[in-house]
């Protein structure tokens, strides 16, 4: 049995804003959050810039508890709260109305900042007060922080499929609902900038010392970012019981592993083509129906060429009917949160008709040049929008959101 899956709530904290509306307004206005990175020292790195999020206040938490939260939890909790509030799943005191809420979530580094603190201390032979950071660094601790802060429990799943994790977590949640395993699932992802990860991408020379230029022939690397985005997905009947109007349908999901290389996609992007086809088949749509794609578009030389090729292959003659942009030039690559934050942008495009522009373009890759979203482009009515992500290890995933009437 395959049941319909609808989205009834969404929330976000990104480098462009502390919630969905602030983020979207800035994104559509063509703003970007690139700035000097001040969270940790980058003296020995090639790059020194990133897209950092401002941490929203959490006034209901006691200072002691706030102090114990990792940066990742500080990003995740407000985003979850916004999503649950929109889905009318919070009581007047900001606690979950449902005691059991399945949770499908993604991250790549969890509370790694605490892990780094611990490692630094033991390497310095420091002998006391080490438990605090190490006890809160593993990713299940951020999940537990969210569960305790919002007052629910239930089966949880933490997908760690690198940069496709967010799309996997959301797709998995949709499959839980579609299969009847759950009626309502909280899903999304979070990621906080940490030194280990920043230096990792820097030493791979995957980050850029220039502007981040997705799908540009002169692209030279990615901009790292951080953030969180969450959704409530459920059956339409479950939403109706609470009198909640669905925002849209989550209609398609595809995922597969590319065996080509640990950090590089197959040059023709064939696995991504297969993944998009799987998502389109499960949504019951053809490529020409998909009016907007939020692309992975890291702006690395290897990724964007293969990805552009895969759009050329997937859309075939209907490529000119879609619009494509990578929002990583605006908010950076948020890694384990990327699939969620970018799914949110695809969803927002679907329901508002506004399209996030492709920033920093000078010489677009010819395969996709005509379909990259221009700045201040006129809104258009969309019926379906897709979000696409690729990750280390060859994880590829695609999600399709559809308007309710479809």
């Amino acid at each position, binding site marked *: 049995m395959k049941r319909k899956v609808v989205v009834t709530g969404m929330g976000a904290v990104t480098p462009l804003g502390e919630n969905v509306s602030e983020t979207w307004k800035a994104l559509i206005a063509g703003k970007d959050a690139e700035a000097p990175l001040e969270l940790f020292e980058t003296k020995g*790195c090639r790059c020194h810039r990133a897209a950092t999020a401002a941490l929203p206040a959490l006034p209901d938490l006691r200072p002691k508890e706030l102090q114990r939260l990792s940066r990742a939890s500080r990003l995740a909790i407000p985003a979850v709260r916004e999503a649950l509030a929109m889905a009318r799943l919070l009581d007047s005191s900001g606690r979950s109305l449902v005691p059991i809420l399945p949770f499908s979530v993604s991250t790549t580094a969890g509370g790694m900042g605490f892990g780094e603190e611990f490692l630094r201390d033991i390497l310095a032979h420091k002998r006391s007060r080490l438990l605090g950071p190490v006890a809160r660094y593993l990713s299940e601790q951020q999940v537990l922080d969210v569960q305790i802060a919002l007052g629910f429990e239930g089966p949880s799943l933490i997908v760690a499929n690198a940069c496709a994790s967010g799309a996997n977590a959301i797709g998995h949640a949709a499959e839980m609902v579609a299969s009847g*395993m759950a009626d309502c699932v909280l899903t999304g992802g979070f990621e906080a900038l940490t030194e280990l990860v920043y230096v990792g991408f820097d*030493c791979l020379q995957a980050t850029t010392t220039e502007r981040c230029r997705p799908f540009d022939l002169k692209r030279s690397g990615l901009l790292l970012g951080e953030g969180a985005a969450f959704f409530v997905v459920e059956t339409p009947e479950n939403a109706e019981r609470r009198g909640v109007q669905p925002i849209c349908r989550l209609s398609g999901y595809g995922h597969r592993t590319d065996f080509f290389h*640990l950090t590089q996609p197959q040059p023709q992007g064939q696995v991504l083509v297969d993944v998009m086809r799987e998502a389109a088949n499960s949504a019951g749509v053809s490529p020409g129906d998909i009016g907007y794609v939020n692309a992975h578009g890291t702006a690395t030389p290897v990724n964007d060429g293969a990805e552009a090729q895969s759009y050329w292959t997937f859309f075939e003659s209907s490529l000119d009917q879609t619009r494509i942009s990578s929002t990583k030039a605006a908010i950076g690559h948020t890694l384990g949160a990327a699939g969620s934050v970018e799914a949110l942008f695809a969803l927002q495009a679907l329901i508002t008709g506004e399209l996030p522009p492709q920033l920093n373009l000078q010489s677009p890759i010819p395969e996709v040049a005509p379909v990259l979203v221009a700045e201040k482009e006129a809104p258009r009515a969309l019926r379906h929008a897709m979000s696409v992500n690729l990750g280390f290890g060859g994880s590829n995933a695609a999600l399709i959101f559809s308007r309710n009437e479809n």
Partner: protein
Amino acid sequence: MKTDLAIIGQGAVTPAGVGLDALLRGSPTETMVPLVSRPDQQWPVFKVNLKDPSLERWQKEPRLRRASPITYFLVEAAEQALAGLDASARAQTGLVVAFSTGCLAYSRRFFESIVTQGQKSASPALFPETVFNSPVSHVAATLRLEGAAYALAGDETAWIAALRTAWLWLEQGRCKQVLVMGAEEFDSASLDAYQNAGWLRNREAADRFIPAEGAAGILVRKAGPEDSTVLSQIADGFIFRSKPQALAAGQRCLSEFDPKTACYLSAQHHWLKDIEQILLRDRQTKESAIYLGEASTASAAWNTLRACSLLDSENAPILFPVWGSTHQIGALALERTGWSSN
């Protein structure tokens, strides 16, 4: 949740040796390892022998040459569990692996080089291997498992999340069978973490906590009439942050299962030992004679296989409560089909 998952393949890599026989009957040898923060203090650890020929063969694979030890544990256990499955069946096989700390050894090495030698010294060869799903990708690529593939993170109960995922994929028709695995590798940084948590006390005690490493996996499909070993029920998501909360979580979890089912003990050396004793004091219990140490998700997988092995001798279902170290409590029920009711 009723699951009806048939277990059709098993594989294990343990500190007691490679393979199911070592898992069930082997005896691990202690290695003394110093704390990073106090090199004068050493603690016993159960480590996997990477020079075992079964593991060494994978280290020669071109794709796996730079891989972290956890990859070798995983690929060997996977190959055992997949024995007899031809290439076309493997192409329809999904892979879901539960990790707690994942590629810890390389992560620590990578960060240590940043701290001690500066950011400029960071190794581009090491960094990609620190990512959770790199070992999953290596296993899928090496053994040509073309179905869905997830790396999951969490405490011991991530093993149950992995089983739940396998069930979902089979329900959705994503794969014909799913290889469900748990794996951990040891690094001395984790010894410092355990020591700070107070888990390494009682160095000489019989119930002392010994960190370990390894992997195990089960190949599952939807149970049919020809299948005999079935994972019939799972429950998880009972969260805690303190011991009293763990007790309440364990009570809620166990209430999901038949109270007459015998329980497999696994927390005899764990910080939740008291909770296990309280919650299971009125139940029939079973345990394994040999302690393999604590390797989080790998331990959950090992104990599932050990509980499976008891089905033959007990001729009755077994409940394995999974005591998550840091997040939640879950449990799974195993049974043989075709038992006579008398």
